[in-house]
């Protein structure tokens, strides 16, 4: 029987609105790593040794070519890695019992917003202070936009990753798009 084809929440959406460009990012795998209280150190060592990434803090993500780590909860980390079929299996080989691994790739939609006015657009939906001196490169925040839980990460001066629930992806896109249109 034919292998199942896959469909991303926004089907690879991409658009420019004024000086802002929006695109869905869907070439990644995302796993949640829940860390037992007694293995935090072991976990930190493993990701340092195996991936060369330091432990993220609850306000700063850590990243390199291999992965980006976000602390989403005091004892939970999201790891964004290049797309693979079964990220749980792949990672558990390396991480073992240092964390409970759960595939979250499909639970989220990831939208990239970039352009000189991206901050001005986000002002309309994001209540977190995005001033570059405060929300620095790789800074992350888990907040809410238009009643939708959102994770925002600064990946460049004028570029942000926005992650929200995949089931409401279309509403989330509408919210971001409208902000871009309103300020363009």
């Amino acid at each position, binding site marked *: *029987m*034919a*292998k*199942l*084809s*896959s*469909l*991303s*929440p926004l089907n690879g959406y991409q658009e420019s609105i004024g000086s802002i460009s929006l695109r869905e990012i869907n070439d990644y795998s995302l796993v*949640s790593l*829940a860390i*037992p*209280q*007694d293995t935090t150190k072991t976990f930190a060592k493993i990701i340092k040794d195996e991936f060369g990434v330091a432990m993220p803090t609850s306000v700063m993500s850590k990243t390199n070519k291999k992965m980006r780590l976000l602390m989403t909860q005091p*004892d*939970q980390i999201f790891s964004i890695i290049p797309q693979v*079929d*079964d990220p749980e299996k792949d990672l558990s080989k390396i991480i073992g019992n240092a964390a*409970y691994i*759960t*595939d*979250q*790739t*499909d*639970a*989220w939609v990831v939208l990239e917003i970039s352009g000189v006015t991206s901050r001005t657009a986000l*002002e*309309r939906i*994001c*209540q977190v*202070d995005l*001033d570059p001196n*405060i929300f620095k490169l790789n800074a992350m925040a888990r907040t809410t936009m*238009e*009643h*939708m839980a959102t994770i925002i990460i600064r990946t460049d001066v004028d570029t942000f990753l926005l992650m929200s*629930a*995949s*089931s*409401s*992806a*279309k*509403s*989330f896109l*509408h*919210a971001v798009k*409208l*902000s871009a*249109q*309103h300020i363009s």
Partner: protein
Amino acid sequence: MSQSFRINGGLTDRSKPINFTFNNKKMVGYEGDTLASALLANGQRLVGRSFKYHRPRGIFSAGSEEPNALVQLRTGAYQEPNTRATVTELFDGLTATSQNHRGSLGFDFMSVTDLLSPFLGAGFYYKTFMWPKAFWEKIYEPIIRSSAGLGSLSMLEDPDKYDKGFLHCDLLIAGSGPSGLAAALAAGHAGLRIIIADEDYLLGGRLLEEDHNIEGISGQDWVLQALAELTEMSNVRILPRTTIYGAYDHGIYGALERKTDHLAHSGDKPRQVLWRIYSKRAMICGGATERSIAFPNNDRPGIMLAGAVRAYATRYGVATGNKIAIFTNNDTGWQTAVELVAKGVNVVAIIDPRDTAPRAHISGVAMIMGASVCNTSGRKALNRITLTNGQTLNVDCLAVSGGWSPNVHLTCHQRGRPIWNDTIAGFVPGGDLPVGQFVAGAANGDMTLGAALKSGHKTATLIAKDLGFTTNVSKEAKADDENFAIKQFWHVTGYKQRAWIDLQNDVTTKDIKQSQAEGFRSVEHLKRYTTLGMATDQGKTSNVLGLAVMAEATGKTIPETGTTIFRPPYSPVAIGAFGGRERGQHFHPTRLAPSHKWADEQGAEFVEVGNWMRAQWFPKSDDKTWRDSVDREVKKTRTSVGVCDVSTLGKIDIKGRDAAEFLNKIYSNPFAKVPVGRVRYGLMLREDGICYDDGTTARLAEDHFVMTTTTANAVLVYRNMEFARQCLFPNLDVHLISTTDQWAQFAIAGPNSRAVLSKIIDKVDMSNDGFPFMACSNVTVCGGTPGRLFRISFSGELAYEVAVPVRYGDALIREIIKAGEEFDITPYGTEALGVMRIEKGHVTGAELNGQVTAFNVNMNNMISTKKDSIGSVLSRREMMIADDQVRLVGVKTVEISDSLASGAHFVAKGEKPTTKNDQGWVASVCYSPHFEQHIGLGFLERGHERHGEIIRAWDGVRGTDILVEIVSAHMYDPEGGLQRG
């Protein structure tokens, strides 16, 4: 009508004429005009009618405090009632009409109320309209209602867009007059991130409306210079047309920016943006508002605030009259005279109740000291005033200054009380300001220019230091202090004509005295009994005057009399702006199930379940009604196989060494010993012992469970489990991850479900022994896609649920349908799902409504007494397990043809439907294709022991009353052989 009242000078652009109409009269103004200044330039005196007595009224002020000049702006769906002409920027094609009159503005039938005024004093309506009883709603009230109110809504959907936003700053400056600009310059140079906002479209405050010198240049030039500097600074954000309307907790301020109100059309852009400003510190530089003096007939068109007369001449180049008299109890009135005369405006006299020498020498102006105005005439426009010394003067404009009230509103929004200052005869901010808030300039009682500049600069510099910006201290701009002496002179007494205090609500000195006489003496009583200060201007020009008169009447001082609390917003804000963009389809986010695209292609009917859109049924061409579709889906499923998207159910992965122990505390039935590879039904209680949620939880590994919750409770259950995990059992090794959006899950039910699934699932022994009822397992589907398989049944049939990552959901549903073709598989929606669960007797939200106990649903035996689980203790309280409690039952109509509706109440045959005879209710119903009649689930007193009884289902609101038979809730396959087979 030509602009006969235009004079030279001002900030309007004479090269840019603008056409507009008022009551269909074509008029012309200039760019930079407000509607009010343009109307005055065109000699339009009469602009509206007062609220209660429908008295003719003219423009009174030049700002947002305006009580009289309220118009209906624009037309059609854009119609905007109660719009203050004094802050409405003129745009080409503007149309405005006057409001609150029957017949023309000039001849208002309702003005008869003015003649009846002796009988319509404060609170008259509380004392009559009581007889006969029935007349109130039918006759009196409709009359009162139609004459009350001001403008009207179009009753059409507001076509404009609105938006919101969030801003952050070190310092927010509200107001851009001398103190605000001085503060901005100081803080800006010091490097603070600042926002300076002003409700006006030009910054500068009173410097635009008065003639001053600052640092040797004109006040207006100094403003331009300051703005040029500020615009250069990247750390400064200037927000004109932006009103700071409220001060909220922890430095949060509400602001309304009017983006397109000054344009003919808003295009596709938001009309207004509502900003939530997060500030470390805030400075209120809102200036002061002038007030009037209460003298007989002081409400005629042409009687205005002196500062407004000055503003119209200076800023707009408009003389408010050909013969102007000034009545003032303070020196600013004299300054007005000086500036008007300098502009060639004809000032005939200045009247001052103070028995002193004239406060200035102004040639050609009669300076009458120790006198007051004691009457006026001119119904639709002032033509004469009479003085206490017997003199009469023919004038068409009277400029009145009763002193100035600092704009302390924003300092009081957190219930701070202003304090009385005798020197300036006004309330100034008290000590209890909102945390992080400072006040400067006239708003703080620094009424003169020099003092305002100084306090603005000084305060901002202190704030900068306090926030650690110490390096750049800029120099302070200097100016002279003008005279500001005032006599506390409130009203002219001893005359029988009415003297107005609140112009819009028609509150006169008589009303205040009556209120005092009737015992309404506390300020709040005064306000509520007379409606003083409750009009759209919120008493900006009338509150202090009213207080002063009440103080006098009670023989108390003003401080003893007190002050009412100012409440947000500072000036009225469109409800649309508060609503923002969350309207219509975008009121709430919409969640789509993984099979949505496919279901849509099938022409499914969708229904909102919380924020989810779920397929309700899948119509086929030969279905005549929705019932045909549902019946077909049910029959097909029960006789062959059906498939339903159940992804919306909450899914929570529970992982950790102590996961089983944790679930054992969360669920009231035992969970510690669920074997790996098995699913168990779990009952969850609230701590107060009421049924909270139920669902199945599967153990996929020693340290890994997957819980399902109802769609509605997913978020709450997760939250409660986090509470238990973090606050009650903080040392358990257990972790929760919501996976609702990760997995696409489909229920496949019916005798042929096994056969269909065998084609989908890779290499799993699907036999009854290999994969029995309540089994679960990680699997792969369609050749390698990772998935999960559960053998659980909500329909009562042989059934499974298969899950794959959401991205494969669309493909999987298509594969399942393909695999099911040979069995004529049917997709089914929430309606068929509901029918089958009712036939089976499974409870859902309709039964577990937050009021129902395990005892009520006959599940109390599931509450283990051998362990301490959430809710177990309080579930055993006496009344919750009393014999006479309602119990879950099934119901069938006695007459096959009868239809049953949920919400009906159970009443014994022959008894009246009364509260006393109420024995329970029907919770959910359906037409059962299996039993070929209407059935339902309900709650009936002692229901568990009344099976077989015939009772009435009384449904008064739908006008039905039928007989039903009480049966066991488990109506379909009670032994459960089918789902285990």
